[in-house]
């Protein structure tokens, strides 16, 4: 290793521009990723077996006029790339994602109507993951002993339970059995929404919560064992300050990454939970549309999910750059 030359970019302003540059680079990557995934999502229609018309019509028998209308609407007689850019233009400029053949409505209005509940659900689950998952992990990592062992056992069980099992068990225990929570629907107002979404959010969060808790535990343990923590101990820094300033601060870097990826993946997982609890969200729309071969809706929802996933990941990357001053130096080399 050569000695690192001392750069003058150490001032607060220097770091701020560094972070700004990093964020700008991430935004460019975000757009590139979305562009690529839109291409894949669009192309998938033509990779599906059978010809595009039968895929679009859901294999229903159509009159020649209807087939002609479909061909016209989807520009099926144009070359592939032209069609793609036409579709992308409609999507970006007019928010037009086509028409759903099952709902007989614009895909964009189907999505708009169902987006709210999915985002609420994911947000609620994310909150549970952060508060409970990170909380348990900290407790486990810092305390050790019986507390640690108990948390480890519980989270191991949680991690092994897929969300559809969790959803079914929670539903039969707390909704049907004990009657504490409603079994279906979304409720009115904030309190009603929270009450209705609690079981679905817990079902969605459970496995991820367990993983986040274990990652947090390991991160805390790793940081506690670091040499710089030893230095702080040897300087007589009191334990609470030691934990806050050196252990939690440093452990927040890997924990943020895992929490972000976990939350991003909740969008996809929401489908199962929404189906179980009868929530008419994007996830259940995706499932229903797939079964009905309603391609336009599948494309639209997939596009929303991919966007949400990529945006959350970008936020994580930015958080990472803010939390870890070394990221800036690393990104320069890449």
């Amino acid at each position, binding site marked *: 290793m050569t*000695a690192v030359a001392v750069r003058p970019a150490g*001032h*607060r302003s220097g770091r701020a521009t560094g972070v700004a540059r990093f964020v700008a680079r991430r935004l460019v990557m975000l757009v590139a990723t979305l562009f690529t995934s839109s291409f894949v999502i669009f192309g998938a229609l033509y990779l599906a077996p059978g010809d595009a018309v039968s895929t679009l019509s859901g294999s229903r028998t159509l009159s020649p006029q209807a087939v002609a209308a479909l061909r016209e609407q989807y520009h099926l007689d144009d070359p592939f790339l032209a069609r793609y850019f036409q579709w992308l233009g409609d999507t970006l400029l007019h928010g037009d994602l086509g028409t759903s053949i099952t709902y007989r409505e614009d895909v964009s209005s189907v999505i708009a109507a169902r987006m709210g509940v999915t985002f609420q659900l994911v947000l609620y689950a994310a909150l549970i993951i952060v508060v409970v998952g990170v909380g348990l992990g900290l407790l486990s990592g810092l305390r050790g002993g019986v507390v640690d062992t108990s948390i480890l056992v519980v989270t191991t069980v949680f991690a092994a339970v897929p969300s559809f099992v969790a959803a079914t068990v929670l539903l039969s225990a707390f909704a049907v059995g004990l009657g504490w929570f409603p079994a279906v629907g979304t409720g009115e107002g904030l309190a009603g929404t929270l009450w209705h979404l609690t079981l679905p959010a817990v079902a969605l969060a459970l496995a991820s919560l367990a993983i986040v808790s274990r990652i947090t535990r390991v991160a805390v343990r790793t940081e506690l064992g670091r040499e710089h923590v030893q*230095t702080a101990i*040897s*300087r*007589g*820094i009191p334990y609470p300050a030691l934990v806050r300033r*050196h252990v939690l601060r440093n452990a927040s870097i890997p924990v943020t990454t895992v929490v972000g990826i976990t939350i991003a993946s909740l969008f996809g997982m929401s489908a199962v939970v929404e189906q179980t609890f009868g929530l008419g969200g994007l996830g259940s729309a995706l499932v229903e549309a797939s079964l009905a071969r309603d391609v336009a809706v599948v494309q639209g929802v997939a596009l929303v999910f991919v966007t949400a996933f990529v945006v959350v990941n970008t936020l994580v990357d930015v958080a990472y750059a803010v939390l870890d*001053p070394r990221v800036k130096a690393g990104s320069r080399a890449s």
Partner: protein
Amino acid sequence: MTVPVLEVDRLVVDVLVEGEPRTVLHEVSLSLGEGEALGLVGESGSGKSMTARAVARLLPPGARTSGTIRYGGHDVRTLKGGALRDYRGDVALVFQDPRAHVNPVRRIGDFMTEALRTLHGVDKHTAAKRAAAALADVGIADGERRLEQYPHELSGGLLQRVVIATMLLTEPKLLLADEPTTALDVTTQAEVMAILDELRQERGMALLFITHDLDLAGAVCDRTAVMYAGQIVETRESAKLHEDPLHPYTAALVTARPAVDRAVDRLAAIPGRSVSAFEAPDGCPFAPRCPHAVDACHQERPPAEYVDGGLVRCIRADELRGRLAEEVAFHD
């Protein structure tokens, strides 16, 4: 010598390795007066760092100790709470790798002023001023700028100087330096050593200097203790260690140093491999590798005895004295 600042007496340390207690230090005794520098020299695994860790109360969990570590009229081993924090304020440590020992995600200024702010209630502004002044003391001119930087933006040598400056902020009475220059290149090494030496003499700090470099210890320290397999085999004035070693291991170490003034075909090496305290045989731990070993050496551990103002653990020390000096002289 005046009243010693630190006095370690027959310190034995066992640590847990995979649940089994293993002896890492065996009856280590040393003392350090105000403003005095003692070198602690030995191979990897000889127990040098463990001695510093025991003194700093940084032994791994489950470690067991016996003997005494006396500082300011108390046995360091039994200090608790506020008394332990006060003691830690008096004793500063500088480690081998500054990069690992400074929190990478906090600014230099934060690292430097942390103890002042959290323990001594110094306000942020005053603490920063004192930190910049301390940086100037170790030859870092643009201190205020450095305080805003992160550890990864500084070179190893610069960071080690930052660490030393930081330790000085709390005005310690005793500095434990565990191979502080090993990770640095040679010119930086010399600078860091010069700073340490100067500060010790200016401030009357006692210095326990741990190194595997016999010459470096001799250059900085009044006395040098040589460790082998968890015990100190010889403590002697540094100057005499090279000319008139009392222990065959010291003599072998001196002979094994490459000479700077001429090329040799082959460096002298000590036959066999160095052992840790727990795997040391009965009797003298060096006996299996010692060219002067006799049957009696394998029977029991040699006690520490005074010879010519030095302390040595070798039953043949008196009779070997001239011969070891000759061996060393022949090498030089």
